[in-house]
């Protein structure tokens, strides 16, 4: 089978399809929709798993994140003896984790306070993050300038801070941030480093702490030793509400536990859960396991795969049968031509190749149209459905391959019929 033969066979197939353009178009609709669903399905599935992957990358697949959550209000109201509402994770919890979690590699307590930062005459709303020197091990921070917090800083409650890149840019503009002093709540903190979050290009949702505490319009984060935060800021927060002042006491907003490998995550979660429920009367914490996000994404992906996959399968099946039907009609119409070709030396094989390539040509054209349409749908899903979608090259190749395979599967029988017609009968056919 040399190139000339392939070319002539395709030319011939193209010609006869072009002769019945409308019929060919209508016949391929099923293939078009089927391929379209395949492309959309793969794009949505890929988008979901990439999003999960990114989330996990940001949060760490071997991390367990325990957040403080405010317990339901009625429980607060019942404790009327004290106006003080004390809840959440404590330093004692963190210590217990150290003592009882054999699988834990790193434990990072974290305290978060919304504040204002001053530099010269500039003022910015910021988040103070009180944490430990090994915080970068769980949060994939890049140190751009200077250094992160050290054990010395923590042990001696130093008034030093590390700022994130965006904040540094806004606060210091042209000045070199290293060595400058930032004023927060009346105290000065010397800048020792500038960092950027590794995954920040992935989106603005780069929050290690539950997003409820992240007020809008926050310029960035300032990392300060947790010991320093404890003595300078205290743990009491007064909130002026409609019914009067509300006093809250929260020690830690978050504790992150990092284990060695991802298969230890679920066991560790179980231990943490037992430990906390023993010492916390109220449900004032929440355990987040990034690995479970992946499972969630897999679930979304599966649902879409089932729905779109069935649409695709049905369309392709119906489309394939339609194509087989049309090809049988074509074979019938061209009985005489088949007889002529057989008389002039065509083998059964040659006839099969001719009709099969015509069918495959038809389905491939349907496939191309389906791919074009199917590439538009994910954009609409992203735009209107606010869902990430990713069209990969391999999904397009797969869709193209499927349309070709449909052509072969449903073209074989008509081609076989054509090849096995008796040449004498065919020549007599009108």
């Amino acid at each position: 089978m040399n190139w000339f033969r392939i070319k002539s066979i395709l030319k011939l197939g193209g010609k006869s399809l072009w002769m019945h353009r409308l019929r060919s178009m209508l016949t391929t609709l099923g293939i078009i929709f089927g391929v379209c669903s395949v492309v959309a399905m793969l794009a949505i599935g890929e988008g979901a798993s990439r999003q999960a992957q990114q989330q996990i990358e940001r949060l760490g697949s071997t991390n367990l994140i325990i957040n403080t959550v405010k317990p339901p209000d009625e429980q607060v109201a019942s404790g009327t003896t004290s106006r003080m509402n004390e809840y959440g994770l404590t330093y004692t919890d963190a210590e217990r984790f150290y003592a009882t979690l054999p699988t834990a590699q790193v434990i990072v307590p974290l305290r978060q306070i919304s504040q204002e930062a001053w530099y010269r005459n500039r003022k910015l709303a910021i988040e103070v993050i009180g944490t430990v020197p090994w915080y970068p091990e769980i949060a994939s921070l890049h140190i751009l300038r200077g250094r992160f917090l050290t054990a010395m800083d923590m042990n001696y409650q130093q008034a030093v801070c590390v700022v994130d890149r965006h904040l540094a840019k806004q606060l210091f503009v042209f000045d070199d941030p290293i060595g400058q002093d930032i004023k927060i709540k009346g105290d000065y903190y010397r800048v020792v480093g500038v960092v950027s979050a590794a995954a920040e290009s992935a989106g603005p949702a780069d929050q290690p702490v539950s997003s409820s505490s992240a007020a809008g319009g926050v310029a960035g984060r300032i990392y300060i030793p947790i010991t320093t935060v404890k003595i300078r800021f205290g743990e009491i927060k007064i909130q002026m509400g409609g019914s009067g002042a509300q006093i809250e006491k929260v020690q830690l907003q978050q504790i992150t536990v990092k284990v060695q490998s991802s298969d230890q995550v679920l066991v560790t979660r179980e231990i943490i859960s037992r430990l906390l429920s023993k010492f916390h009367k109220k449900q004032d914490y929440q355990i987040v396991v990034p690995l479970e996000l992946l499972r969630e994404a897999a679930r979304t992906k599966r649902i879409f795969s089932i729905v779109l996959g069935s649409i695709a399968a049905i369309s392709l099946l119906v489309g394939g049968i339609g194509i087989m039907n049309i090809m049988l009609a074509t074979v019938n119409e061209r009985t005489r031509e088949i007889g002529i070709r057989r008389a002039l030396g065509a083998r059964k094989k040659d006839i099969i190749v001719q009709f099969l390539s015509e069918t495959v040509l038809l389905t491939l054209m349907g496939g191309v149209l389906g791919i074009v349409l199917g590439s538009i749908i994910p954009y609409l899903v992203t735009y209107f459905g606010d869902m990430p979608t990713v069209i990969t090259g391999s999904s397009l190749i797969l869709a193209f391959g499927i349309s070709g395979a449909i052509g072969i599967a449903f073209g074989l029988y008509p081609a076989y019929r054509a090849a096995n017609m008796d040449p004498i009968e065919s020549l007599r056919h009108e």
Partner: protein
Amino acid sequence: MSIVRTEKLGKSYQMGLVQLHALRDFDLTIEPGQYVAIMGPSGSGKSTLLNLLGCLDQPTTGRYFLGDEDVSQMDDDQLSYIRGMKIGFIFQSYNLIAQLNVIENIEVPMFYQGIREKQSLRRARELAELVGLGERLTHRPTELSGGQQQRVAIARALGNDPLLLLADEPTGNLDTQSGTEILHILDLLHQRGKTLIVITHDPQVAARAQRVIHLLDGCIHHEENNGRQT
């Protein structure tokens, strides 16, 4: 060595309980370069014979040698090869392929023998020239007269330089004028040494052949020899 040699060739069809013998114990030998006409009433077995000689059909009994090959034992692929390579068909109703133009129609048998594009195109041009259609290479069959279409069919039959040309009523659909033109071309091919078998009802057509074989009920009734020089 003869071109065609049949030994007790027979073809029968089972029609319900009755066996219909379309051809019976048929012995025929045709030497290279002979021009043979076959005549006979309708249903006498002329087309049946031609289909067997053209390897479109397999005999029920007997043997058939084309050149030095026993064709009666061949499988479908081998028969296809013989048809394409050693036989040239000329039909009463031309049987050109409507989607293809003149040159493409002539190329069809060469295409199935895997002849290269350049070579088959050159040969197709020569053959079109030979039958007097050098000016109409890109016309479609529907744009040609009957006589012209039959000339394309003759050119097509010559593509692989076959051993044997088979024509079933080649002038049956044509007026006298174009029929005569076709017969002139057949004469020309005969002069060039081609072996021809022509089925016809027309005595004037038969008169051009060297041998005229008359069939009746699937047997040779008698044979005339026109005595022309080979």
